[in-house]
Every structure is written in C-alpha cells, then in structure tokens.
C-alpha cells in the first residue's frame, strides 16, 4: 500500500487504472481537468490510450466506441459537460455498453461557479438522456479515498450490468487534497474491498438476453463475433427494429436487469446512530455528509436523538432506508431541494421531511445542530431562510 497526500482527481485516476481502465477520453472543464491531465500521462505508461475530444459529447462517444472495441473506458467532466453526454449516454444505455463517467459537481445552473461544490445533478444522473425506459446506476463518494473505491466499483458494476455507471462527486472531492492509500497488489485490493470484473467478449448469438440476466458479456466488435450494434431499438439478435413488441422486451431488460439485482450494490450506504430509532434522520450524500456526520455525533453528545443516513448508491434510489415514520432532514448543496423529493416519496405518508440547502458553501456544524434542535422541538426552519418552502 502506498500513501499519498493527493487530490481526488489523482485517487480516481489510480482507481480507474486498478480497475483495468485503459482508455480515457476527456475535455477540459474545471474541476475535472486534472483527471484528464493525469490520465494523459498515466495511461500511456500502462499501455493505455488517452484522447482529448473536441467536446464532451465526442469524449463520451469515443469512450463508448473504445468500449465496443473491448476496452474498459472512462470519461470525466462537470455539470456543463455532463449535459452534453446526453446523446452518447443514451447510446451506451440502449446498446448496453459498459463505460464509467465521473461527474464532479460544481455550482449551477449553466456555467455557474467553477471552483465551488454543488449537487445540482442528482436527478440529471437519474435521467442523463431522453426516452426513459431504463434504470441508471449512480455512486456518490464523500472523500478522495472513497472516490477511488467507487471508481473501481463503478467499473465492476458497469461490466456486470452492461451499462454506464456515473460516479457523482463534487468539486471539493476532486480538487481537495487528502490522505490516499493506493493498493499495490491484488491482495491489498481485496483487503480494501475493491472488486474487479474482467472485460469478457460476447460471442453471441444474442445481442442481449431477453430477461433480467446479468453477467452477460457486452458486445465487442471484431473478434469474429459478427456483432451488430445499432442506436435503434434492437432485436435480441441486434437488428434494428422499430416495433413495439421488440421495444417492450428491450425496455424490460434495461429496467429489470438493474432493479432485480439491487443486492449487488445496495450495501453502499453509511448509517450513524440509527440503531435506536432516532427522532430525526439526517439524509445526505457526498461532501455535505461529512459535516452532517460530525454534527450528528456532536448532537448525540448533547442528548439529541438524531441519526444519519448517508447514501453512496444514489440510483436506483434505496427506498428501504426511509420505511420508518419519523422526521427526516435532507442536507444538500443546492437551493431547490432534489434528494429531499425522493426522501419524501420513499418515506411513509405524512412523514415530516425537511430540507436545508446551500450551494458553494457547506453548512456549518453549528448551523446543523441548531436546525436539529428546532426540528426536534417542532419548530420550522423557514424563518432561518434555509427552507424555500415547507415540505
């Protein structure tokens, strides 16, 4: 194991290489540029390929193309680039091509603020492309070390499910310097819980299995597979067919191959002080969860019955954490409230679901503890200007 004081971008680069990524196509954008820079010097050393696209759409198309050629491929961007992925992302979902995408969230909408963390793409990562009829897998780390782990995990899941996987980080995670341990052997990787899955080649005859079966190797062009790969609704053999029955089969597969195998990744969460049915459950993911964890710990010391649920697997949304009727508080780096809507949907009817938003700046521990107190006393947060509306 080798230790570094390095950025999340470094950690993600090393994680991707450990997972077998040998192709990276990127496009400069703060705060993910350093990842492309690191890949441009690291990948050639590993016998891999780095390509800079002419824009983000091209970058992800390059990755999908490389994945079709048998490579494990990755790209990285921030919000304004992530929206340009819509087209290739849909192709990768529809044609079941594994690829890993890192999104380092900054403040939006539009170009917004480049050098500050934001969480405005919670729903965008669920619906990164048009058309619907699919599930997406999204993982959200809250540190540089975990960003490395989740990059490795993303490659693992993308291979097994034959689908693109987004790692949703934010500016503080990718730009921030932290203590990072990089495993140097397979044994060390196993010790750290890193799972890998080799790229296998689909030798057909089917383009996709009609059921929710996983671990079916993806289509790889060449290798005498004679594979077809088209952007239209495919038949099981891979032929284009614009026909409703075929579409139904294909859509069923895209949805249920993920829904029916949640057990593969639904352990990806963290719970603190949740054993005694707390009166207030604080929900978060990514960087804010680090403040939340500290605040909850301190609140417990002063006798407040608060617990914390941190989501690492964001999509498909893990409803099971919100079955109990209690008060919920979602802490997010946006002002419109995104995660809170899902919590509200998943929680039992008439549950109190609150929201604290901020953007660019993180909430402070003091602010959070004050909010916990108010909520536990049955007061509203609105007067503090935290909530734009009551939930």
């Amino acid at each position, binding site marked *: 194991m080798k230790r570094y004081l390095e950025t999340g971008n470094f950690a993600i680069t090393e994680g991707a290489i450990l997972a077998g990524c040998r192709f990276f196509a990127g496009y*400069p954008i703060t705060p993910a540029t350093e990842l492309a820079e690191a890949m441009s010097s690291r990948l050639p050393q590993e016998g891999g390929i780095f390509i800079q696209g002419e824009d983000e759409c091209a970058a992800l198309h390059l990755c999908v193309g490389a994945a079709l050629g048998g490579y494990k491929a990755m790209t990285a961007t921030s919000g304004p680039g992530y929206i340009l992925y819509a087209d290739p992302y849909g192709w990768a979902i529809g044609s079941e091509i594994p690829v890993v995408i890192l999104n380092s969230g900054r403040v939006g909408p539009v170009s917004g603020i480049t050098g500050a963390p934001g969480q405005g793409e919670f729903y965008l990562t669920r619906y990164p492309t048009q058309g619907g009829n699919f599930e997406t897998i999204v993982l959200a780390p809250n540190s540089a070390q975990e960003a490395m782990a989740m990059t490795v995990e993303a490659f693992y899941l993308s291979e097994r499910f034959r689908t693109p996987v987004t790692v949703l980080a934010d500016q503080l995670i990718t730009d921030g310097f932290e203590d990072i341990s990089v495993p140097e052997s397979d044994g060390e990787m196993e010790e750290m819980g890193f799972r890998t899955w080799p790229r296998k080649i689909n030798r057909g005859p089917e383009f996709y299995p009609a059921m929710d079966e996983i671990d079916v190797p993806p289509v790889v062009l060449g290798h005498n597979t004679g594979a077809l790969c088209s952007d239209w609704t495919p038949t099981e053999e891979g032929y284009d067919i614009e026909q409703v029955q075929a579409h139904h089969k294909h859509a069923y597969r895209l949805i249920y191959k993920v829904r029916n195998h949640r057990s593969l990744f639904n352990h990806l969460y963290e719970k603190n002080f949740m054993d005694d049915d707390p009166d207030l459950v604080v929900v978060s993911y990514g960087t804010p969860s680090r403040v939340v964890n500290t605040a909850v710990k301190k609140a417990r010391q002063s006798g407040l019955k608060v617990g914390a649920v941190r989501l690492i697997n964001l999509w498909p949304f893990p409803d099971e954490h919100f079955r109990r009727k209690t008060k919920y508080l979602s802490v997010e780096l946006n002002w419109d409230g995104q995660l809170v809507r899902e919590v509200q949907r998943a929680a039992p009817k008439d549950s109190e679901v609150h929201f604290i938003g901020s953007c660019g700046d993180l909430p402070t521990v003091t602010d959070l503890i004050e909010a916990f107190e108010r909520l536990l006393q049955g007061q509203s947060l609105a007067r503090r200007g935290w909530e734009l509306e009551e939930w």
Partner: protein
Amino acid sequence: MATTTLTLKELSKKEDRFTHGHRMCSGCGAPIVVKQLMLASDFPLVVANATGCLEVSTCISEYTAWKVPWIHNAFENAAATLSGVESMYRSLRKQGKIDKEIKFVAFGGDGGTYDIGLQSLSGAMERGHDLLYICYDNGAYMNTGIQRSSATPIGADTTTSPVGSVIKGKTQPRKNLTRIMAAHGIPYAAQASPAHWRDAISKFKKALEIKGPKFINVIAPCNRGWRSSTDDAILLSRAAVDTCYWPLYEVEDGVTRITYVPKEKKPVEEFLKPQGRFKHMFAPGNEHLLAQFQAEVDREWDRLNREAREQTPEKA
C-alpha cells in the same frame, strides 16, 4: 480603401470601449486584439463571448471591462447566440423599429472556436449572418490550464499532450481554421497579428464594413501557456509572422491576398526558442522535431503563396 488614415495619433483620440482594469494576465495577447478591434470601428457594437480566458477575466463580480452590450454563453455557442441576436436586429430594422446601424462581433479562443464551437461557427457562416467572428488563437485551452486544442502546434508541451520519454508533446499538426472558414465561401476571412497593428486594424475595419459573415483569426501569445516572458507578446506575434508560421493574409470574395510578406523568411527557431513549451525540441537528439515543424510551416506557406498567385485577378 481599407488602409485609409490609420495613424497612432488619430487612434489615441478614440474612446476606449474595452477598458483597462480587466483581469487578463499581464502580457496577454488577447486584450490587445480586442482593443485593436474596438479602435477599428465607430459603429455601435454588440459583442458575444464564448467561455474562455477573455470572457472570465473581463467580467468579474460586479465589474465589466466592456462598454458595449456583451453576451456570454457557454463554450460552444457564441456564434449561434449572436446569429439569433443578429437575426432579430435585421427583423427589427426591416420593421422600422431600429434605424441605427449596429455591428455584431463574436470573440472566442481557439478551444471554443476550433473545437467545441466549430459546429455553431460553421452554421453561422453558412447561413450568412451579418457578423464578424474573431478567434484569438493562443494555441491551447489556457483558461483551464494549458490543455491541447486542435490549434496547438505540433510538438507543443501541454498538460494533456505532455512531453515524456516516448511521446514528445502534441503529435498532430494544427488545424488550419482560416482556410476552413474561407472554404465556406464567405465574403471575408483573414489572419492577423497584434504586432502588425496597422494590418490588423485595417482588416477589422474592412470586415466590419462588409455585409455578411466574416471571420478573422488572430494570434494571441499567452506567456503562461507558451512558457515565455511576460513582455514577449508582441515580439512573439511578430516572430510568428516573420517565420511564416502565422502568415498575414486575407481571402476576400474568394481571392487570396498575402497582406504582408516578410523581407526575409526567418527560421522557425526564432519563434520557438523563446517558448518553454518547445524546450524539448532544442534538446540534443530532437533535431528531427525542429525539422518537422519547419517542414510543416514551409508546406503551408508554399501552399498559401501558390493560392495567392493563382487567384490574383488579372490586371486590366
């Protein structure tokens, strides 16, 4: 016609429509280009700016350096956005709701013009909008920290085309965007350099007076990315012209005219040597890289000369 009475004395009396106090790095070439454009014209201007150094540094917090209406849109959209604005203006003029003659100018760096913005630029040129697109070409994505672009010259060391023991910087020659734009058959496409200010301002002036889509590519040294001294911008933009790396020419109604022929064509080393991004080319054993660069410049210069000769209108 174009080169009427451009004297420094006269230009110095003009109002500054692009003011000092912006946050471009000291010694940057891009603001010189903008200043020269502003001096070239008395028309009211509307400016669109693609994301880039110029855009982020000239409109910071509650300050702006622009004394003209200014629009920033994302990286890939300056030409498309301005096309919309110009269409609206044309319609309003037709309806008699505006009587002023307004000119539309878009600025983009090479990343936003050669790469991500090429599609919208090409669309605007083909549709024939009455606008002038100016690319300030500093040969890389300088705003995000020196990543290669398709304008980066062959061999240059950038953070995404790093010089290593095997790969020596960028392996591809740069895209000739001025030629691509001229190939759209637009009324005016040109290349300029801030060091040749009279030539540059004349071209801006001429372009603003011509109706239809115009494109001017201007070299804009970046001491951060080129790894050169902060006072080298003019020296380097002159060396680029004298070595014929950046020939000054215009293509007007399909006719190519070289507007400045150096008395003596200098070797490319004069342009490359002061720049740290080409340092490795001067290391022993890398002579072939210099020769390759020279050959690339020679080929383009010869082609341009041939074109200019062939297209010279016969004298009556």
